[in-house]
């Protein structure tokens, strides 16, 4: 680095740094304070209430219900998405299907649409009166298709289905690119040894995907715990709170009930849970990276 060059670098970085500080770092720090107040979010008046919001939270059945639902979405999404995405990715990269380029684009397509549009679209599909799903089932002779988003039994699974549909393409592409990094001679060797496709997957492909798996687990954790838009639009947490997540519950507390202090406390809890889990998952997966 030439002498004095750091000044130029600092000059270019400074605006972004200031913006980041003002719009990201400061609000995050500020949030920890707001979580200790009774702020209503409509005037500047706020009084310090200590840890009261947190003790309220521990005794709030709706908080636990929202946490339970959030964990449900994270776990289901986090297991179903990698399995399907990996299956598609392997099928395509190993040339097991014809027209893989077409499928690659099709499966990735949901990522090009905004989540809001996806949620609205699926609300139409799942409408019990004019939705294509129910009408298709009627065509097949099903008399009373369930009301999908209108029943506590089906609504959570509908949310899972939409989340999976929206996410699979992205993870498929991640896995595909990782798969393409695996040297073909390993496969040739497996072939010479007479390994079946299944054996090849378990003993060659899967172990070599370790790095990308680590990344996707963290992604899926963040994605699952942040579940908001799909739920907000498709069910608004209903029926009877069966799909309410921490993110929608804290939104309602802040913007509907005027309890910004309490909502911020929930947000802090959400942050701590996600952060801890992400750290844990990285730590648990820490092992020798396979070199090839």
């Amino acid at each position, binding site marked *: 680095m030439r002498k004095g060059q750091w000044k130029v670098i600092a000059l270019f970085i400074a605006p972004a740094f200031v913006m980041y500080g003002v719009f990201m770092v400061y609000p995050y720090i500020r949030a920890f304070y707001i979580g200790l107040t009774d702020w209503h979010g409509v005037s500047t008046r706020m009084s310090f209430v200590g840890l009261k919001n947190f003790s309220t939270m521990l005794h709030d059945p709706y908080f636990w219900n929202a946490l339970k639902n959030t964990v449900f979405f994270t776990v289901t999404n986090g297991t179903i998405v990698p399995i399907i995405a990996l299956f598609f990715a392997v099928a395509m990269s190993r040339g097991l299907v014809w027209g893989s380029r077409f499928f690659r684009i099709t499966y990735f397509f949901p990522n090009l649409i905004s989540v809001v549009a996806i949620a609205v679209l699926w609300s139409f599909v799942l409408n019990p009166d004019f939705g294509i799903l129910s009408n298709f089932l009627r065509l097949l002779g099903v008399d009373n298709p369930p009301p999908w988003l*209108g029943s506590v039994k089906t609504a959570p699974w509908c949310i899972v289905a939409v989340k999976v549909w929206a996410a699979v393409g992205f993870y498929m592409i991640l896995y595909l690119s990782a798969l393409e990094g695996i040297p073909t001679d390993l496969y040739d060797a497996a072939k010479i040894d007479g390994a079946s496709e299944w054996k090849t997957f378990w003993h060659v492909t899967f172990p070599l995907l370790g790095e990308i798996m680590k990344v996707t687990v963290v992604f899926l954790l963040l994605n699952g715990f942040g579940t908001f838009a799909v739920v907000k639009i498709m069910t608004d947490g209903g029926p009877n709170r069966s799909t309410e997540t921490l993110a929608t519950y804290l939104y309602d507390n802040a913007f509907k009930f005027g309890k910004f202090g309490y909502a911020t406390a929930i947000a802090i809890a959400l942050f701590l849970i996600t952060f801890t889990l992400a750290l844990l998952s990285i730590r648990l997966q820490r092992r020798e990276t396979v070199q090839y």
Partner: protein
Amino acid sequence: MAALYITSIVYKGRGGMGKLDERTMEGAFFQGGYGMEWLYDAGREFERAHPGYKAYIWGNPRVWDQTRTRFLAGNPPDVFWGIHNINIWVNLQEGLVAPLDSLMEAPAYGQEHIKFKDTFLPGALDRGRYEGHQYFLPITFAVLGLWYNVNMFEEHGWKPPKTWEEFLELCDEIKATGIAPLVHQGRYPSYYGIIFRALLYKIGGYRLLIDLDNLVPGAWERPEVVRAARMCRELVDRGYVLEGSSAFTHTEAQMVWLQGKAAMVPCGTWLENEMKEAIPPGFRMRIMPLPAVPGGKGSAEAIEASAGADLWVPAQAKHKELGMEFLRILLSKKMAQNFVRKVGDLMPIKGATEGVEIPEALQSALDAVKAAKGETFYMRFMDWYEEMQDGVNNALAALLYEGIPPEEFARRIEKIAQRIREDPTIVKYHRELPERWRT
């Protein structure tokens, strides 16, 4: 660079406010089914009445979310109406709302011989009053009940029922023709709440509603509440409610009803306006009250009707007097008649319907109120306590879609009521039995 950002922000702010000066009144309003035209009209009337002054009127469906930061910064508009996400009672407690006492005593616009406060329909100002002061003014007088498809009813010779027995018989007859007797806006259980609240009144009379609103200990667990819940559930169990209703949004359910797939739908007088674009030619709608129930205290004609708590003047507004003056004009007899003409809905102002052609739907609501002979009722827990509203809605969803026992339904709500009673941070409200019931 930073300086550039800051100046651009400042100038952007100025640009937006450029139209505002000392002689401009700014009004920000919820933009919804009523459109904006009636507000612009009132703005023009304001400018005519006060030459040299300007009315800057704007609207948005999310007006409260948009202006919240301005309220925080102490720079709110001069008159305000928000619906989405707003909790006006929190705002009142936080000191955001100016009392309108001087406006109430002012002479009415266009009828200077009477006071502004005396131009409202009886009881219309109740909801906006708190501790003896008027803070909020109503826009509409809403009547809530069951809307029926008039052509369908006439074709089959069906009549609005007077008793619960007749109602069940009617539903059986409708069901026999392959049409669903009822559809409801299941995504938002509050619409089924119209049926629930009416049953509460018909069973327990006004005293019960008052106790429920006041969260009297144990009130929400009384046998009357359990009975109302059981009757709500009965309609579902007998197969009178269209399958899939639980998943419908309000417009979807109302659409299904307009298509003739169901005969009745619970809603308020805004229904016709909300569905304006979708009403098939020749479709006729009328409202009816829920029927009387055996041994109940309310008559068959009694119907839910109330004027809202909508319009207010922000306490920190630059031109509070101009904001109030705009309200005086907006809620004048002249503008109320214009409202009926343009929007087809009713302002709670005396003489609002004089010389105006009333659409059949609205007329049926006026007829229903007349037939009730003063026996109109409404509840307030929903606007006082968001959590109570939320809790009742969720309990209704559990009752109707999951089939929890009515006793459990009542227990769940009482538990929420208890939580609110015991939470010192929640401001408690109280209402008295309206005078004409105190006998």
